[in-house]
């Protein structure tokens, strides 16, 4: 007995004295130093730099509101309040969530790129070309992220190193430092990027044409920050030469124009688009989208309300009008945008805007409610429409005569708009010609948010417009070349038989015309706000053409520095908020 308790005490005390290991055991975890020292790790890190562009930006509304909202082209459906901080500069302050998110997610990309560019030199790849391609991609993505950052927020914190320890102060760097870095990054990208992705199936990786395209865009943007004519010309020239390089080497760079505007945004052409120079991909496989509920929901952001009216039901070809049905969460064109098009000769309007809705149920008899909804005469009650009959027409035309007596429901431009502003009549201010560039008839469900189309963020047409603009505005620029560049796009855009009507002459060329042409060609493509800002027209165009934006101030050309950032740094006074906020 005594022996037993001696054993027990003995074992107890022994264990007590031996103690136990307090080492951490973390087999499921991973650290940057380990993972990013291998080829696979670097490849994964490059992937990280791409992910936010798809999961947080292109395909979602914040970036749309920041790049197309608040311009001359778009206004909230029914002039409602959704995202008014961006779309109408109403209540845009340092604590606005979208500012914070945009800033954070772009800087997150910068940090991945910094880490990759820092670490890749020490990692050997089995295929040197692949390593070069990754260097090129990281350089391209850093420039692309910084272009967004500096254009949205101005002269902010320039970071070129991976975050490994705490630094609690921040300083502003001059805008020229950002542009120097972007241009040198893009030269590295041009030198290193292949023409086709490595591996070739990875459609969506940055390739050589993307780097040229971004360089042209960055160069022409930089003009805005140069004060001397010679410096401006230097960057006009760089922009023009770079854009022309792409235009002149289409076969080598594997990019070309479609024959018609319709083909550019034809859903079937979305995934292997000839004209795209850089695009943000979304997957048709749900599990490959970081936001599986809503990978690309641009398709719901331009819809007019059509369902549950005159018998129409939501279907795949007409798309999900779920946001417009609540009357508060999508974009309608301004009257100005609609009037930019001469639809008699410019087919871009009919190719890219939807006016007509044909009945998509077997038959429908007009009800009193629906008639009242369109201010149609009660006497039409019971009149029948059959499948395929025109049921709704939301047109940019002004219709005269007994427009309410037509067999279908008609909403014309004077119903949708009251002069230059969106009508306050709730019967009509949700019905308008709707942009179709982002349509997705391949949704999993007719009313689904979950679109899977790629978002084209740069296409060849822009190169023609950059070259034209640079040559027009550069001292001693080649106006003939500029005119020809514009005419390439206009000729393609011509309604058959109207080609000659579409052609312009050198005398037509000026900044306002070029911005109009950009509007006609690129509306809804995440570029308008940047174009107006870099040309100094943002404030004046909004004042002139978007009368529903009443609270814009000149200082709104820069976004506010997020309060979250200023709250954390120890020198917020020194760093300072952007002017006006």
């Amino acid at each position: 007995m005594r022996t037993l308790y001696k054993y027990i005490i003995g074992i107890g005390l022994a264990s007590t004295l031996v103690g136990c290991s307090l080492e951490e055991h973390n087999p499921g975890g991973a650290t940057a130093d380990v993972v990013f020292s291998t080829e696979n790790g670097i490849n994964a890190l490059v992937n990280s730099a791409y992910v936010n562009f798809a999961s947080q930006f292109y395909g979602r509304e914040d970036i749309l509101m920041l790049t197309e909202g608040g311009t001359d082209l778009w206004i909230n459906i029914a002039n409602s309040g959704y995202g008014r901080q961006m779309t109408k500069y109403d209540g845009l302050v340092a604590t606005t969530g979208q500012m914070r998110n945009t800033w954070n997610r772009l800087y997150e990309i910068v940090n991945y790129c910094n880490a990759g560019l820092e670490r890749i030199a020490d990692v050997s790849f089995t295929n040197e070309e692949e390593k070069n391609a990754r260097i090129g991609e990281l350089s391209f993505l850093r420039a692309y992220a910084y272009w967004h950052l500096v254009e949205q927020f101005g002269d902010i914190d320039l970071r070129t190193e991976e975050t490994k320890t705490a630094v609690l102060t921040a300083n502003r760097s001059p805008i020229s430092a950002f542009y120097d870095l972007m241009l040198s990054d893009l030269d590295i990208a041009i030198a290193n990027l292949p023409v086709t992705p490595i591996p070739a199936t990875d459609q969506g990786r940055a390739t050589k044409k993307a780097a040229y395209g971004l360089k042209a865009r960055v160069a022409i943007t930089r003009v805005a920050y140069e004060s001397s004519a010679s410096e401006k010309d230097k960057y006009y020239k760089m922009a023009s030469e770079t854009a022309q390089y792409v235009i002149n080497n289409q076969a080598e760079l594997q990019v070309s124009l479609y024959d018609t505007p319709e083909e550019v945004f034809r859903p079937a052409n979305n995934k292997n688009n000839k004209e795209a120079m850089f695009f943000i991909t979304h997957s048709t496989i749900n599990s490959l989208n970081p936001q599986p509920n809503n990978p690309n929901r641009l398709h719901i952001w331009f819809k007019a309300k059509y369902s549950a009216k005159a018998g129409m039901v939501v279907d795949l070809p007409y798309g999900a009008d779920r946001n417009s049905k609540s009357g508060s969460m999508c974009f309608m064109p301004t009257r100005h945008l609609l009037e930019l098009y001469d639809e008699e000769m410019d087919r871009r309007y009919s190719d890219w805007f939807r006016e007509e809705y044909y009945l998509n149920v077997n038959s429908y008899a007009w009800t009193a409610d629906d008639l009242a909804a369109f201010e149609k005469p009660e006497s039409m009650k019971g009149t029948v429409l059959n499948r395929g009959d025109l049921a709704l027409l939301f047109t940019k035309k002004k219709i005269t005569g007994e427009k309410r007596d037509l067999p279908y429901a008609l909403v014309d431009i004077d119903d949708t708009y009251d002069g230059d502003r969106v009508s306050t009549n709730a019967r009509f201010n949700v019905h308008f010609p709707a942009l179709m560039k982002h349509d997705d008839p391949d949704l999993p469900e007719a009313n689904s948010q979950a679109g899977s189309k790629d978002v084209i963020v740069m296409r060849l047409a822009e190169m023609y417009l950059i070259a034209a603009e640079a040559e027009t505005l550069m001292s001693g620029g080649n106006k003939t070349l500029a005119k020809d560049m514009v005419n390439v796009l206009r000729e393609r855009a011509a309604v058959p038989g109207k080609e000659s009507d579409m052609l312009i002459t050198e005398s037509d060329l000026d900044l306002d015309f070029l911005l109009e042409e950009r509007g006609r060609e690129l509306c809804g493509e995440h570029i308008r706000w940047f174009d107006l800002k870099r040309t100094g027209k943002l404030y004046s165009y909004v004042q002139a053409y978007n009368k529903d934006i009443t609270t814009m101030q000149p200082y709104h050309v820069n976004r506010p520095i997020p309060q979250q950032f200023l709250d954390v740094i120890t020198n917020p006074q020194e760093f300072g908020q952007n002017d006006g906020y």
Partner: protein
Amino acid sequence: MKTQSLTPEKWRLDKSLVVVAFMLLLSIMLLPVQQAFSAVQPQYQVTGLVLDEAGQPLEGVTVSLTNSTVSTLTDQDGAFSIRLVASTGSLLFTAVGYLDHALEVKADDNVNVSLTPDDRQLDEVVVIGYGTVRKRDLTGSVTSVKAEDIVRSPAHNPLEAIQGQVPGLDITRTSGSATSGVNMNIRGKRSLSTAEDEYGNAIANNPLVIIDGMQGGNISDIHPQDIESIEVLKDASSTAIYGSQGANGVIIVTTKRGKTGAPKINFNTYVGVNGWAQYPEMMTGDNYVQLRREAAKAAGQWEDLDDDQTLFTAGEWTALQNNQWVNWKDEVFKNGIVQNHQLSISGGTDNTTALLSGGYYRELGSLKNDALDKFNLRLNVDQNIGSFIKVGTSSQVTHYDGSNRADNVLWRATTNVPLGLPYDDEGNVILWPVGREGKVSPLADEANEYTAQHRIANTNLITNGFAEIKPFKGFSFRSNLGVNLFYHKNNDFESENSIDRAGEFPNSLASILNTNKSFLSWDNIINYNFDAGQHNFALTALSSWTQSKFNSSYMEGTGQLVPEQLWHNIGANDKDSYIIRSSYIQNQTMSYAFRANYSYQGKYLLTISNRWDGASRLSVGNKWAMFPSVAAAWRMSDESWFSLPQVDDFKIRLSYGQTGNSGISPYGTQSGLTSYANAGFQDQGFTYYAYNTLIGNRDLGWERSASWNLGADLRLFANRINLVVDLYDTKTTDILLPRTLPTSMGSGNNTPFQIYQNIGSSQNRGIEVVLNTRNIDKAFKWNTDFTFGANKEKILDLIDGRDIIGATTRESESLLIGRPLKSFYTFKRLGIWQLDEAEEAATYFKDADKTQPFVPGDIKLADLNGDNIIDDENDVTYIGTTSPRWTLGFNNNFTYKNFDLNVYAIARWGQMMEYDFTASYDPQGKGNHPAYLDYWTEENPSNDFPRPSLTNFYNYLGYQTYNTVDGSYIKLKTVTLGYRLPKAFTERAGLNGARLYLSGNNLFSWARSPLVQNYDAERGGSAKSPLLRQFVFGINLDL
């Protein structure tokens, strides 16, 4: 019975331990069979009778053989029989309320003992860390709750049952859902750490839970009926023996054990109804239509009734024309049934005591298919081996089988348009009550059995074993080995028509989450008590080791063809849809501690302790820390000069101690990466990494709390009044804070980087009062227990001496110097601008450019910096905290003859809560909100809510101020009426006792804020899973 052949002689230790285990098992089987043991005759036997001062037999007196583990209890006739180890021995007679009595005996004596009452009643034993102490010798602040107070209100979670009974212990139920638990804090919050456990629960301010001497179990797993006592250790001197783990206080649960003597059988059962929750009514009818008109009118889009149609979608308009209004809340709410049955059997022989207890609990919540089944089985066994070795086990298995509803059912019911039809003519759920333009029906998941199922299955095992050796007088060595195992499983299936997928996804989603955790602990404890004249010493030394390992695995797939397969065949889903994950978390601790208690004549008491703690989660070089404490007490009433006859007992206590907190998550000092595979280039999937949000800090050390506690215990007027008062002051330094880095440095998957630093300090000061009084003590008895706790919590200092503004949610995550830890920081709302204030309103602006003046109907906000511009940098301030200023428990017991009545009320005062209903105000009425929210119109100049408009609430400047309201409340929590059946009746039925009772729970809550109506504020502001009223009928049987 064959087992009769077993005799103690055969129970030899030189047999293998297997025999011992087998024997333990058999002894349980034997419990109800008293005769089996009556045949057992020890070699040296002493019998006797114990009587009280009046010569009446005393039942339940412990008779123990000194210097051994042998003990027994007297029966109802006061008789006992005890076995001696040798031919002579010394017996000690102890009983609560009586002085100890020692007696030398020899074999075959038959003795009569008369016990002297101890009217100070201070010898009640209180469990403290790694030991027990008589209440009279306590030097620290410990509140003890005994068995009868734990079962007073019928709850399946013991913590819910003791709510309000322990001052300084703040308990709130997390939700009214059948599967929910409780939150608890002792004496406020002191840590800012965001550390979480493996299941994602915040742990930095959680008290340490010790069950039967071992850590690592869940109190909620234990059936209240099985608990002997719950001790709450609050001051640093009491908790310091637990070192870092005890920094937030310690809750010690001791379960009942078998006692020598005839088997005792208890059967308790209750059946009741859950429902009739306090929950506001939503808008309907004209009220609802009027809001939509007002909103459109404010936007210039409504003039008269002709414009009504433009307010509504086609589906809504049709429903409106047909007068199809629906009260979604009433459609989803059901009354649930709750039932609880618990049977326990205990008893034992001289050498073996055991308790076996099993229970079944079933609760049906307020939503259809919200249900919980809970099964628990407990086995406690103690076995003496020879005269100085005792082994035993406490083991328990608890199994939960629950079914949840989707999180948003009730929220949809409260915010969906109140129009449409819930069911069609055949009684089937209509998925889209106002057409596809509207929202999915809150009833979607009730369409059929396979529309959606959310199941949980948890099995928790606590198995503790101990061996205790008492080789010589005053010395004991005890080794405790604990193994706790947790198996959790979440199975979910949502079809394409379920509430979360309808209209969003064309297919179903099935998933399985499996987690398991093992928690091992091994404590070795040496106690040595000895006297030197009038000096008494009690020394304790111990070592403690713990290890926790956690595994999880998750799989999901979408697009299953056959809904009836639920999650049972995830392989049948679309191959491209699979998501799989697994994780592993391990950590361990090693500790040594020492404690010395000294007492001189029981008048002067001193406790000194120190603990050395090591934790794997801290960085190398900072893993170990030391936590000392000292406490002293003076029983003034024992002094010869103390001569107040009204005072029965008066003691003053003073303690100081340090505790620590390693409150970071495992791996919190490592900079890690998380890999993902949910992205690709088009359909080419790839792996990518995101930085973990936490950047490792290799210099991280312990957070330390230093606490003073001054207490006094007072008993007056022959124990009619019992008062305990404690004052305390805890200062926490080197607070572990996850500090946000500038967002230009990047982030981890959209969350700004954070780094743990030891910065800042906080203070908790407070007073706690327990007052027990026997107000009337005649045939009619009235006792009250009053507990009161007030705590003032504030941040003393932060890095750089400036406030830290919440990185993601400024309103609720900011840290403000001089304010409590969880503060709200936003605009100060003064009301609504009224018509007669139009002129004044126009002098204030919503924007820096002064282009947007305030107009009547806008939210009126205080302009704190006087610049006439209301902005969220200069006009935001501290407006309140979630920490209550004080809490109160008020319990009344009335007994008259066979009737007993218990009325129990609690109050929690001075805190704010994040209130879903005020935040749900929908100024355009396109959803719904409570009808009592009174909004401003020209005709109705309300001061509560702003003017309706065709925009979301968050477009109103100052809308955030509606997220928080005063959460103070007073609540009548429980009323129980019991009736004890007459003895004559129970005896005839062969029962020792029987009581019937009716009890009502969550009866009525009254909130201080006028913005909180018809809502039980104990729920803490959420609109989901309200606390339910519960009415039960129960029976307690003693067989």
